[in-house]
């Protein structure tokens, strides 16, 4: 199909349908309410299910119920709403149910503001719920990529029987860009007969399924958690995605940045090139698993003297960047949040200052 001009939120909604997900439960919150406003008329066209829940707490468990019944299901929300869903996300991880959560981040903490932010990085990658639970987290940097990631997210969620989160910022949701949708995917988790509470009659085995996360025997619970850990390790081995930008030749500094922020950084890298300063950029497309090896390797390049984590937050991803660089190079953070987005000019300034201070230390 030809390219169409769509808002990120609309593209996310349409992509889910094209990924065969015809079930959506949500509660409105800026800056992602367009997803619900799109799906409330679009889903009935394809005989799908649209329901506006009474709260994000309830929505998380509507997702649980539907996922547990063996269908593709997703929701979208923004930072405070995701906080309310986080208990349910932990239960989904515990019960090993596939579902997709989209977080179009806004400023925080608390009510914060509605403008773009990346301040839920740690929540998404490390602190999404109680217990040893993890999400596979994907971070799109364009409307096209948001659509593609939504379509990848469902099979990934089903492959691991684990929720997947698309972590976008307000701009990704609100911006309009041309988008082209890949072809339809299948519409049901192919492995659901083994676990879904979809009614015994509907399964060859005619034995019942229990969807649960309670394990009273400590040995059993430990084993369950070891199994979950093995899954997360498998994600680390198989699902890392990232983009290299201007890293073929020598560069004096390496920027790590994701989402909208990475696009600003790309502009800065291009402008620095015009001034004769080469800077490489790595853009994580998955935040969990994090492209540790790629960043570690890129930072270790002989010409590279410093690493900069640029974020629309007060320094969250920088912890993972430091972990990846393992002390081989100085790692710095630069960022703004609450709706302020660093401009290319500011980033150029920071890169130059960093390189100068690094030189003066030698």
């Amino acid at each position: 199909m030809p390219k169409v001009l769509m808002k990120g939120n609309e593209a996310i909604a349409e992509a889910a349908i094209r990924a065969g997900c015809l079930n959506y439960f949500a509660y409105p919150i800026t800056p992602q309410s367009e997803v619900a406003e799109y799906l409330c008329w679009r889903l009935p066209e394809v005989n799908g299910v649209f329901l506006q829940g009474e709260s994000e707490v309830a929505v998380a468990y509507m997702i649980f119920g539907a996922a547990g019944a063996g269908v593709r299901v997703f929701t979208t929300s923004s930072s405070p709403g995701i906080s309310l869903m986080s208990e349910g996300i932990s239960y989904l991880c515990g019960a090993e149910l596939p579902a997709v959560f989209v977080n179009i981040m806004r400023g925080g903490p608390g009510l914060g503001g509605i403008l773009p932010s990346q301040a839920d990085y740690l929540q998404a990658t490390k602190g999404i719920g109680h217990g040893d639970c993890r999400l596979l987290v994907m971070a799109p940097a364009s409307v096209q990529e948001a659509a593609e990631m939504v379509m990848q997210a469902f099979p990934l969620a089903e492959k691991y029987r684990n929720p997947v989160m698309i972590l976008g910022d307000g701009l990704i949701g609100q911006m309009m860009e041309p988008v082209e949708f890949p072809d339809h995917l299948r519409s049901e988790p192919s492995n659901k007969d083994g676990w879904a509470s979809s009614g015994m009659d509907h399964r060859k085995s005619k034995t019942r399924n229990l969807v649960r996360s309670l394990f009273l025997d400590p040995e059993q619970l430990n084993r369950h958690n070891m199994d979950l850990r093995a899954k997360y390790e498998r994600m680390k081995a198989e699902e890392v995605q990232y983009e290299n930008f201007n890293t073929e030749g020598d560069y004096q500094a390496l920027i790590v940045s994701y989402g909208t922020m990475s696009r600003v950084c790309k502009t800065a890298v291009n402008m620095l090139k015009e001034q004769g300063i080469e800077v490489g950029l790595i853009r994580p497309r998955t935040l969990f698993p994090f492209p540790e090896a790629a960043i570690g390797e890129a930072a270790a390049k002989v010409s590279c003297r410093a690493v900069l984590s640029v974020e629309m937050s007060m320094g969250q991803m920088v912890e993972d960047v430091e972990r990846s660089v393992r002390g081989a190079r100085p790692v710095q953070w630069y960022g703004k949040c609450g709706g302020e987005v660093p401009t290319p000019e500011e980033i150029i300034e920071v890169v130059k200052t960093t390189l100068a201070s690094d030189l003066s230390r030698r």
Partner: protein
Amino acid sequence: MAKTFQRPQALFDQPTHYCPGCTHGVIHRLVAETIDELGIRGRTVGIAPVGCAVLAYNYIDCDFQEAAHGRAPAMATGIKRVRPDLMVFTYQGDGDLASIGMGEIIHAANRGEKFTTIFVNNAIYGMTGGQMAPTTMPNQRTSTSPFGRKTEEAGMPIRVAELLSALVTPAYVTRQTVIRPKYIQKAKKAILKAFTYQMEKRCFSLVELVSTCPTNWGMTPPEAIQWAEDVLLPYYPLGDVKTPDADVKEAPCKTK
């Protein structure tokens, strides 16, 4: 009749973990019998609550999901919306339904979600050790109301059946009990009706069952039954509070 003592197919043949004098076992049996009689075991999904009945799936033999505290109605909504062909019931206690999950039950009932709720009201939190519930009676002593429930602080106990029947949408709301054999047939009929209405795609139905908790009430089982009759039943009167044929003009309930 020998039939009375036959184990329903939907009930596992194993003793329950419930305390002597607890009514969960009887209610499990009534639900299992209903599932058998309607022949729906293969397309039924139960939702077990947080509470003493968290392990209900160990006794009732059909597909089950295990809820977070209070969220069973949201989960039932999720299942029923995406799989309207399944028969879905939630099994909830008073802490689960009337306290932490009050928002979920009211909205599910008001949307007319086509599932059935079995609400076990024993006026106390059983699982966590006898704390005060929203349905605890005035002056009733619990581990968090050691001097008795003070209504000036905690208000009067919530009559869930009446509260939900104030909504226009729900199809069937009734209160029954199983504390003595003489009440059980009526309770059974109510559960059967509630499931039947679900099969007929009528809006939400709820069966409240006034129950006993001798262990946490600190009474022998006979004392508990007597107390329930003397104190609970006058405040929680038995009978249908809302039937599907009332309010037909306004309610969106439809038979198929």
